[in-house]
C-alpha cells in the first residue's frame, strides 16, 4: 500500500499549526476557477441535447403525427429558452476543450513536438468539416 492511500502525511512531532478550510464557494474567488466549474456544468447541457436527439429519433420512428407533436413541443417558449442556454454551454464546452487539447495530446513529427496551435486548429478544422457535412444534408433536402 502506498503512503498516500490513507491520508495526507505530516511530520509526527510538530508545533501547533494553523489550517484553513476550503470554502464551499472557492470557485467564485477567481475567474479561472469559475470557468472550470462552468466547463464541468456544460456536460449536463451536452447530455440534454443527447436526450433531445433520442426523443427526436423516437418521434421519427412513431410516424408523421408523433414527429409533428415533437416539433410542436420544441416550439414551446420554455424549451426554446432552455435550448438557447444549452447551445451556449455546448459551444463553451467545445471551445474550452478544444483549447485544452494540446495539454493532453502530444504529437511528434520527425522527433519534434507539433506546435499547440496546430493541434487546436486541427480540432476547429474537423468541427468545421463535420458542420459543413450537416449543412450539406440540410440544404440538399
Amino acid at each position: 500500500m502506498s503512503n498516500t492511500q490513507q491520508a495526507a502525511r505530516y511530520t509526527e512531532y510538530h508545533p501547533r499549526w494553523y489550517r484553513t478550510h476550503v470554502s464551499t464557494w472557492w470557485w467564485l474567488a477567481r475567474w479561472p476557477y469559475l470557468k472550470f466549474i462552468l466547463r464541468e456544468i456544460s456536460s449536463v447541457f451536452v447530455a440534454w441535447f443527447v436526450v433531445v436527439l433520442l426523443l427526436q429519433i423516437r418521434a421519427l420512428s412513431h410516424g408523421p403525427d408523433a414527429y409533428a407533436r415533437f416539433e410542436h413541443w420544441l416550439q414551446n417558449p420554455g424549451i426554446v429558452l432552455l435550448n438557447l442556454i444549452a447551445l451556449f454551454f455546448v459551444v463553451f464546452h467545445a471551445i474550452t476543450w478544444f483549447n485544452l487539447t494540446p495539454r493532453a495530446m502530444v504529437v511528434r513529427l520527425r522527433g519534434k513536438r507539433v506546435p499547440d496551435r496546430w493541434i487546436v486548429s486541427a480540432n476547429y478544422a474537423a468541427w468545421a468539416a463535420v458542420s459543413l457535412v450537416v449543412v450539406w444534408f440540410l440544404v440538399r433536402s
Partner: protein
Amino acid sequence: MAETISLEVLRYSPEHDAEPSFQRYDVPVHKDWVVLDALNYIKDKVDGSLTFRWSCRMGICGSCGMMVNGEPKLTCATFLSDYAGDGSPVRVQPLRYFPVIRDLVVEITDFMSKLQSVKPWLIRGDEKPVSEGEYLQTPDQLDRYKQFSMCINCLLCYAACPVYGLDPVFIGPAAIALAQRYNMDSRDEGAHERMDVLAQHEGIWGCTFVGECTQVCPKHVDPAGAIQQYKLTATIERFKSFLMPWSKNEAAEK
C-alpha cells in the same frame, strides 16, 4: 525619500495566537525590488521576528513561494513596482492549502512523502558496468522530458490546485510531473513501478483538469499537461493488460 508601499503580511505565532492576523508594514519601493526584498527589509530594519523561507533569490531554490494578493508567486520574481501603482496594500500570505507553522512558513512533509512515493529517480533493470560508459541520449530523447525536469518543487502548483485543497490525499501536480519526467526518460525502466502509485484515484484520476497549476508554474513545467498525458498512457496500459495479460507479466519480470 523613496516612495513607500504598504505590505499586509500574515503573522502567526503558534505559542501566542489562536489564529493568524495581518500586520501592516510600510516599505520603500525601489524599481528593482521584489516582494522578497521587501520582506528582508522588514526583517532587517523593522521587525526581526518575521519568519519566512528564502535562499537563492533567483528562482532556482523554490523556497520563497507565497501568496501575493491571493496568487501563488515566487516572491523573488515578483516585482513590488507591479503593485505600487494603485496605492492599495500588497497582501502576503503563506502558500494556500498547507498548514502554517509560523508567519509565512508552511509544513511540507506531505509533499515530500508524496514525491518520494512516485520514485523520482532513474530506475534500471540492469545496471551496465561503468567500463561500458554512459547511457547515451539523443537531443530528441532529452526533449521529451526536459520540460518536466525544470520543476524546482516550489509548491506554487499545489497552492493553485483546488483538488489538493479539497482532497489532501491527491498526490498533486509537481509529484506527478516529476514522475513523468522519469517515465519519459529513455534511460529509465521504472514506469511500471510508478504506475501503481500514479494510476489510482489519489493519483492522476483525482485531477479534474482545472489547469491552474500550469498557469502559476514559474518554470513552465506544465504539470496539468503531464497529468492528462499520463491519463492516456494509463488507459492504454490498462486496455493492453486486459487484452494481452501476458504482456504485463513480461514487463514485471524484466
